[in-house]
């Protein structure tokens, strides 16, 4: 069964002269454990797609099914909880909570759910992310690459159905970028984690299982990247 099913998704900004069709009848599906990369010109609607699929934003029309559930038919309260448990986000600008240390940032979605974090799993994550010695540090004391790794940890903490990553390497140098991509890839493999990642870097895109291209709001499946 597909973990993500997107059908005829449309999103229009503005009206009349200034109307922008950011998403134009987008349909695609993603199976469990797939690592998908989305590429496209600037302004082609990639971020819009990710935000709508991740339920941060509402579509003009169309459906998004995650794990078989139509997310936009849920009332706001349920949707919040659903998003907390099933969707993880990684942003270009890290967006860590400045008042919380590394460990707290990673377990934050669990804390919001009033769950006791699984100690072993957190340890494991910290180990994989290479942040064991930094666990008590605040975000302001970390490098960009380390901050992004914390953000990845945070996205993984609740073991969501899908992780949405919007240009996770956009603010990093090439060595750190590569590290982040490798990490995401190994996560995808290790935990059968579904990941949707936007990138401008052709090399990074090719590392994914599948590449989707956005052009002026329309989506084209490029299939398995030619190696």
């Amino acid at each position: 069964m597909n973990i993500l099913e997107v059908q005829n998704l449309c999103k229009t900004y503005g009206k009349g002269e200034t109307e922008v069709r950011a998403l134009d009848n987008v349909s695609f599906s993603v199976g469990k454990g797939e690592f998908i990369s989305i590429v496209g010109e600037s302004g082609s609607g990639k971020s819009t797609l990710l935000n709508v699929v991740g339920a941060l934003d509402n579509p003009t029309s169309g459906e998004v099914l995650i794990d078989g559930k139509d997310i936009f038919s849920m009332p706001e309260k349920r949707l919040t909880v659903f998003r907390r448990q099933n969707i993880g986000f990684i942003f270009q600008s890290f967006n860590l909570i400045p008042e919380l240390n590394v460990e707290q940032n990673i377990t934050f979605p669990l804390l919001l759910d009033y769950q006791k974090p699984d100690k072993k799993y957190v340890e494991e994550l910290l180990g994989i992310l290479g942040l064991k010695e930094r666990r008590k540090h605040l975000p302001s004391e970390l490098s960009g690459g380390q901050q992004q790794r914390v953000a990845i940890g945070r996205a993984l903490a609740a073991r969501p159905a899908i992780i949405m990553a919007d240009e996770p390497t956009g603010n990093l140098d090439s060595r750190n970028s590569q590290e982040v991509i490798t990490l995401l890839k190994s996560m995808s493999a290790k935990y059968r984690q579904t990941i949707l990642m936007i990138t401008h870097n052709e090399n990074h895109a090719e590392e994914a299982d599948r590449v989707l291209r956005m052009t002026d709001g329309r989506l084209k499946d490029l299939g398995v990247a030619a190696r």
Partner: protein
Amino acid sequence: MKSYLGLIPQYERVHRKNNRISVLCIMLSVCLVMAIFSMADMAMRSQKNYFIKTGGEYHAALHDVEAETAEQVSSRVDVDLSGWVYQGSTGMLSGKAVSFVGANEETLESLTEMDVTDGVYPSLPDEALLNESAMRQLGLSVGDYVTVTVPDGTQKQYRLTGVLADMGSMLKADIWGMTLCEEGFLAIADENAADGTTYRIQFKNGAHIQESIKEIKEQFGLSDGQISENTALLGLMGQSESNIMQALYLIAAILVFLVLIAGTVMISASFHANVLERTKIYGLLRCLGASRKQVKHFVILQGLRQSAKGVPIGLLAGQIVTWAACLLLKSISGDRFSEVPLFEFSIVGILTGIVVGFLIVLLASLSPAKKASRVSPVAAISGSSQLTQNKRAANTKLFHVETGMGVFHALSGKKNLFLMTCSFAISIMLFLAFQVMVVFLNQGMPALAPSAGDVSITSAMGIEPLVIEEMEAIEGVDLVFGRMEYGGLSVSSDAETGTATLVSYEENQFKWAKEELNEGNTDGVLGGTGDILVSYRDGMQWKVGDAVTLHTPLGDKRVKIAGILSSTNASGEAGSLGYIICSEGLFVESVDAAGYTAVDIQLAGSGSDETVSAIRRLLPADTSIADKRLSNSESQSSYYTGAVFIYGFLLIIALITIFNIFNSMNASVAARTRQYGVMRSIGMGTGQLYKMIAAEAVTYAALGCVTGCIFGVPLNKMMFQFLIAGKWGTSWQLPAASLLLIVLLCFGSVVLAIIWPIQKIRKLSIVDTIKLQQ
């Protein structure tokens, strides 16, 4: 743009909303500060007018001095007006006491409370003014002749040249007043005149009255008793050295200080909100090569531009609030509040408003500039989204994560925490300080008791119950209630033995007595003959339930004390054991009563003169009939003036509190909007967001309330001891009700204050919040 300062209007245009909020804050602070000072000014003026009206506008009075001394005093450079006011001699007119006053026209009009309402001033020794109600009761008019028994017992005829306005004190004492010229008074004066006669002095504007009084005293070798000051008037002019006035000045100073701090805190708190954003623009300026001095100019100009917009509107609003308060008083009763100034400007109010508006804005906006020069320009523009660089992580173990973070948000920003705690604390302190003023008002100018009569009749002969029924039938009479009194009743009990005055109450008086009850209850006393009430006195041994024996003219009576009253409205003297209040039934069983000794009458509305005349006609001529309408309404109006202004202040303080909290919370939420968006994207629900912000707000409120109480309660106690304990002997108690009220108000405004920003965040889409410029 001609210079770098041209950036300011551009900057304001982009940040129009922030700019508008800052201007609004300035406006409100200026309005509040100005309203408080103007209202205080107006209250003082109306009190001053009141004192002038009821006491005359003299500053000092000499007693028992030679004419020569008076002459020399009047020629002093700092004396504006002075003159003899002869009083103390009384005569008789139609069976009623007449009090004579002698003065020349100017003295009477300016230096005494008396006024001529009609006719001309007497210039010859056999010409006189008679007071209005005497003229009416005797059916006299200007130009008529009256024959008066003068102090030496002989009859003398006077021609009435005019009418003297009635005075509350005269009507209350049931006497008439006659004004003569100086010569006329001296012609009839007896030895009593020496006591009542004073030489009154009004000093020129700007004179140092205390020094002048001292000089006069030394120069003429006067004793303390020979020179007295008009304490009330000097007090309001800020020229008194009396203890109570000094205490009031001190308290006024404390209040002024607190109000100014409240204004400062309010503006600072509102400015602190966009410190971060401002820090960035100053940092950017520095980056582009602006010197520190240029940045400073930029800041000052920016502040001044905002003040220039906010201050005038604030002044206008403050003026409107003040006038509204005065209008409110006038609308309660135009004649009663004739002394309240209408549509006058208060220089003090306007000045403090302007000073607060400009000075404090500068102080508040200098802090971001300082910050900008302290942080490196690069750091300022690279824009870490944090308000402050955190040194440690939030505690998420103690509470749920959202609560923990809310508390942490509150505690992490030192300056913000300080400002917020101060806003709450100062509001509470102000409130507690003004609470003392309310107590002072109630003690110093008590509102009329419900039992107060408009007309009080006392008669040693006794008034028969039948007369009371007749009086009740008169049109315009609302309630009539009498008391029988019997003094010097000997009373014995296990605890104490002595004399008491036995007083009978009827239904109405027992009902009012409930309010005065310290202990016990009044229920059994009205109907039965076995229970009594006693009045409270210091060192009283009696307790509720004690048995007491009354040794009455009709035999011994054993009764039980059912309750203790804090005060009674008996007219006779108290015995060594105070008053004993009983039912009319018990009184009649104990004393062979001839009728009511005292009768109080309450009129419907304010009652007309006809009603009072009708009452007079029912009574024998020798009964003393005190017309208290004028004096009651005078003391009422003092109370209401005080109440409107003091409660007005309290209202303004409550508004300051609410606005301050509202504004600060709003700003605090606005500063974290982006972060809240991030949290929501990770899955924070609206309820959790609400809890987080509420936790932050409650932390401020709790800390503020504790701080407010720590400083406010001792302040309250100190002021109480200064103002009230010394004068009325009341002991200080924790003002629990007021404290509870202000604390509830604080928490209530917290709830209000967070609803709005949360709604705003909820409406913003998560995507938009994350995309927001940091």
